[in-house]
């Protein structure tokens, strides 16, 4: 051994320390570094695969979202087209109905006018008939009463005037 007072090197102690250190190396490898390294590696791989899966899912969802957005746009355009078409149809319908209504009104008016003319004509005819009857009646009454010429004339004038006013 080497003895320098406080600093001593005993070969026996050194040999013992060397062997103890080698044994300790084996133990540390077996109980600590080995298993811990393995577990940390496993965890690293787990995390890596999970991140990868998450990334994949994210990409997939992005695809889905784009698809959904496209479909939504399509639907919106379709809706717009449908609405436009419906609106145009409604306008056409409106125009058609208005036109028909006007036509109908005109027809009804014409019919009514014709009816009125016809009725007027009919009334005149009736009147003429009544007037003739009345004239006969008047004539017979005058005859019955033997009215003088003047009175007769006056009566006839009066009558004709009455008729003229009514017509």
């Amino acid at each position, binding site marked *: 051994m080497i003895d320098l007072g406080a600093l001593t090197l*005993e*070969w*026996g*102690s*050194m040999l013992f*320390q060397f062997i103890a250190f080698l044994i300790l190396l084996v*133990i540390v490898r077996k109980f600590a570094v080995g298993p811990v*390294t393995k577990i940390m590696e496993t*965890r690293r791989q787990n995390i890596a695969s999970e991140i990868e899966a998450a990334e994949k899912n994210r990409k997939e969802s992005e695809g889905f979202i784009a698809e959904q957005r496209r479909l939504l746009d399509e639907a919106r355009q379709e809706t717009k087209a449908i609405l436009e078409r419906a609106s145009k149809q409604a306008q056409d319908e409106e125009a058609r109905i208005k036109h028909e209504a006007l036509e109908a009104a005109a027809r009804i008016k014409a019919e009514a006018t014709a009816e009125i003319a016809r009725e007027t004509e009919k009334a005149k005819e009736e009147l003429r008939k009544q007037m003739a009857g009345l004239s006969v009646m008047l004539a017979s009454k005058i005859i019955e009463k033997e009215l003088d010429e003047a009175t007769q004339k006056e009566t006839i004038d009066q009558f004709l005037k009455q008729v003229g006013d009514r017509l």
Partner: protein
Amino acid sequence: MLTAFAQIKRYNKEYVFLIEQYACNTSISERGEHIVDHFTYRFQLGPLVFDLATIIMIVVTALVVFIMLVAMTRNLTAGVPRGTQNVLEWIVDFVAGIVRSFMDTKTAARFVTLAVTLFLYIILGNWLGLAFNVLTVHTPDNTSSEFIHQLAISSSDQATAAREAKIMNAFEDHSVHVAWWKSPTATASVTFTLALTVLLYSQWIDIRRVGVGKYFKHFLNPIHLLEELVIKPLTLPLRLFGNIFAGEVLISFLLSASIFISTIPLIIWLGYSVFVGAIQAYIFTTLTMVYISQKLSDGH
């Protein structure tokens, strides 16, 4: 031979236990005298000298590391780590981070075990000596000459005789203290062994990489020769040994002083020593990786 009593003091919340054992015939008043000069029990097997305190502490430290790791790895999961697994993963990741800062990740994986072992062994070794001291106090009445001889074993017969004389001399004015518990890293044998092991390993990596002929050609450069054979093998172990040994010397010194004077400096110094213990473990591990990484490329 020895009867002992343990004195446990609790300092605030630090829970620092100081166990000091005394021979029953040692009076308290004697404590405080000449305590800094500690002896250790040595024995010889063939040509090899062993230091019992060092061997005890090597075994204790290795066992602490072992038990700690077994306790921490009982329920490992690749899912969300809980409790001690977090601590263990943090330690492994921290040390692996040191290794990775000097080499690429794939190469670093080869040296993580070495770095973790060094780091845990040194940091726990540094701290174990701070937890408490175990000393036996010897007087001529309770000490046999065989025991004194064991304390005195040294490099040569003359040196042993000189140490024996020194111990007998010490008995004349005070008792002799024998340490049984200290930081393993406060022992030069331990730090030199760790340092030489990793340095030889780095040389081996170099030989395997460049081949024997080219490897020895390196040493034609005197600066290189000096660096590899003198500077690195001396600075790496001595830095660790010096820091921890000095810390323990100061702790023994403070323990030997009056409790009223030394308590507060002791707490401060123990706290600082915890810091130094961690820093030295970090430095030793880092430098080991620097030296290894130098051998992994032609860069230097």
